[in-house]
């Protein structure tokens, strides 16, 4: 059974069909890229996968369990971590506290009035920060972090509940080229060692072809190609969409 299985997913905004009959699957340990030109429907797809948007029709199953109609916080409980295209962190908190909030949620302490949150599982939080390589920034407020570092914080936060599926929307946008490789290497290593299914969208084709074991190409809201990087590279339909008819 696939970690994520999507069947005939559709979503329209008013008269615009943003996503049309999209089907694909991602297995545990796989790193899959979802690519396509601007407006292809990538972010709409992502937002349906974690419950931010409700699909008009179609099915989304996590390890066989349907998640259509669940809200994002419920989807997360089923083991879906997510990073955002524009980073979303808690700017009034330190880096460590950002991770601690995720850990509190994971351990179901959100309604606890007890021990101060800043003392909750400091070691586990720091271990997560160490994994993404920013443990030395743990005590700094998120508001002053560089953009690339915020992406790492997001990744650490997304890993706090030991996800089975990691959704990364443009994970390397706004990062320096060297940093991009490092971040994706990290994600790929995690996928391998912890059997996490990783699905990411990306505009940087070097990142896509270096790190994706499989690529899904969206165009006009439909899947036009899917397969290993080399197959996709050679696909005439993909060349047409990206390079024009020439």
């Amino acid at each position: 059974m696939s970690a994520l299985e999507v069947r005939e997913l559709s979503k329209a905004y008013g008269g615009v069909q943003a996503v049309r009959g999209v089907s694909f699957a991602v297995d545990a340990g796989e790193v899959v890229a979802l690519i396509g030109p601007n407006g292809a429907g990538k972010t709409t797809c992502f937002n349906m996968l974690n419950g931010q948007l409700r699909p008009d029709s179609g099915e989304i199953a996590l390890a066989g369990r349907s998640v259509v109609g669940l809200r994002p916080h419920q989807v997360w409980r089923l083991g879906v971590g997510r990073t955002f295209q524009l980073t979303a962190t808690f700017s009034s908190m330190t880096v460590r506290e950002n991770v601690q909030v995720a850990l509190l949620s994971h351990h179901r302490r959100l309604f606890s009035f007890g021990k101060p949150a800043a003392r909750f599982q400091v070691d586990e939080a720091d271990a997560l920060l160490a994994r993404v390589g920013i443990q030395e920034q743990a005590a700094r407020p998120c508001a002053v972090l560089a953009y690339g570092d915020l992406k790492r914080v997001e990744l650490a936060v997304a890993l706090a509940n030991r996800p089975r599926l990691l959704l990364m929307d443009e994970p390397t946008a706004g990062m320096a080229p060297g940093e991009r490789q490092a971040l994706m290497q990290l994600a790929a290593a995690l996928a391998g060692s912890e059997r996490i299914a990783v699905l990411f969208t990306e505009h940087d084709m070097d990142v896509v072809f270096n790190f994706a074991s499989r690529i899904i190409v969206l165009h006009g809201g439909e899947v036009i190609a899917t397969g290993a990087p080399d197959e996709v590279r050679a696909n005439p339909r993909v060349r047409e969409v990206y390079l024009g008819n020439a």
Partner: protein
Amino acid sequence: MSGSAILLQFLNGLAGASSLFLVAAGLSLIFGVSRIVNFAHGSLYMLGMYLAVSLSGSLGFWASVPLAAILVAGVGALIETGVLRRIYKAPELLQLLATFALVLIIRDAALWTWGAQDRLGPRAPGLAGAVAIAGRQFPQYDLLLICLGPAVFIALHLLLSRTRWGTRVRAASQDREMAAALGVNERRLFTAVFALGALLAGFGGAAAIPREPASLEIDLAVMSDAFVVVVVGGLGSIPGAFLAALLIGEVKAFCIGLGYSELTLAIEFIVMAAVLVLRPWGLLGRPLVETRGPGTSQPPLPAPSFLLLGGLAALLAIVPVFAGPYTIVLLTDILVFALFAASLHFLMGPGGMPSFGHAAYFGLGAYAAGLLVLRAHLPMELALALAPFAAALGALVFGWFCVQLSGVYLAMLTLAFAQIAWSVAFQWDRLTGGSNGLIGVWPAPWLSSKQAYYYLTLVLCLGAVALLWRLIVSPFGYALRAGRDSPLRAEAIGIDVRAQQWAAFGVAGLFAGVGGALYAFSKGSISPEALSVPRSVDGLVMVLLGGVQTLSGPLWGAALFTWLEDSLSRGVEYWRAAIGAVILVLVIAFPRGISK
């Protein structure tokens, strides 16, 4: 109820709906363009009423109505150019506060000009009689009112859809920056739209004088009605406002017709609740745009200086040794309001929810304490312990609806609820004593001296504030703050932001209720003023004065404000207006926030 009676009540409802629509349409129009919810809109309606009553004496009724509306439009233009124009870039909360300051000023101006007595308007000459409809008498003038609503609706629709000016207004409503980039003169447009909105409110008020007398309390009543209409219809939608005005107008008419006038507000509340459950963004409104990207940057909460606070607590503990009874009573008040402000800060600061109706929970605590002693004959200590839970329960009921919304929508809803709570306390004579309130709410004998009660207040308030601060750093407080910082991220890590906010309402209500109960026993009486909207705004001023981004700020703000109010209310007759003027000056002078 016979068929003809139903028909008559239906027509009555239509007549009421017309005034309601005029006010709500103006509110929606102004919000659409300027993104400011004009809390003073009910005040403009009230101004229209008074002006029409005055003018009709010399000019006659028919001339006075349009003239009053035009005068109110002029006042609106003055408000826009004098106040609002200077604060379009200020934080939302300060804008709302500034328009509320206008409510205080306009009310005192009306009190000064027209006195505290209700002013009866004339009958409309030529339409003073009644017509027979289905064998019953129906006022001729009300038939005219029935036509007024749809007529204004059609006129507005034509104005907005068929004229160049209307196109500009619609463009500015949809995308202010783009409209400005395309050469729309924003300044003139904003002034004109505000004047038009004011004109509608003034017209609505002036046209209502044959039906009801002009009174000072009508401003807040109309404002909360208009908020309910706008929330039910969908903010920014004129057809939505029309539909909702009809719905609310009919509901009110039938409640009154059936002889349950006390129930009107409760039914209104239930209708609003039902609509919000089915369509959170109102009948014809659009869903709120989800906040995207990084949340608004908020600095971390600095820890207060515990040494300073500890010293202060020690000082407060020895004050009764050398202070006179007057100082002790004032300090008791300050402590109570410090707790009130701290509980509001819990919602506004970590919760990120601007509550414009926090006095509702303070008042619920006060009334519950009084009722438990007077009606249930409980000992005072037990009443004091139980009353906060009544407040928390009220906060949970109101809060459930409030957390479905955010930002200005939420602020409007909190205010509407507070106004409803006030009206219930004001109208339910048999239980609450109506406008006289409850008297004889005294503490137990061992607390009857001012000093003993001061110590009780000191211990409970300091303890409660300490507990609130503890909550802010608890996991619950962090999860709440997470939802404020970035709702998107919070939901994506398993936080049910609404549930967190809902619980925060309960907590804030509980602590406000402690303050309210303490207040009731310290005064020995409770009047509806304890949960009135101005009291809510007092709380906002305390929090904003001290700084919403600090923990101890609201306490200092409460101390300063309570002392100021105490001094002003003894020396200055129109002290509410004075407070309003101070707010306006502060907001205009520091549009980026009063605290640093």
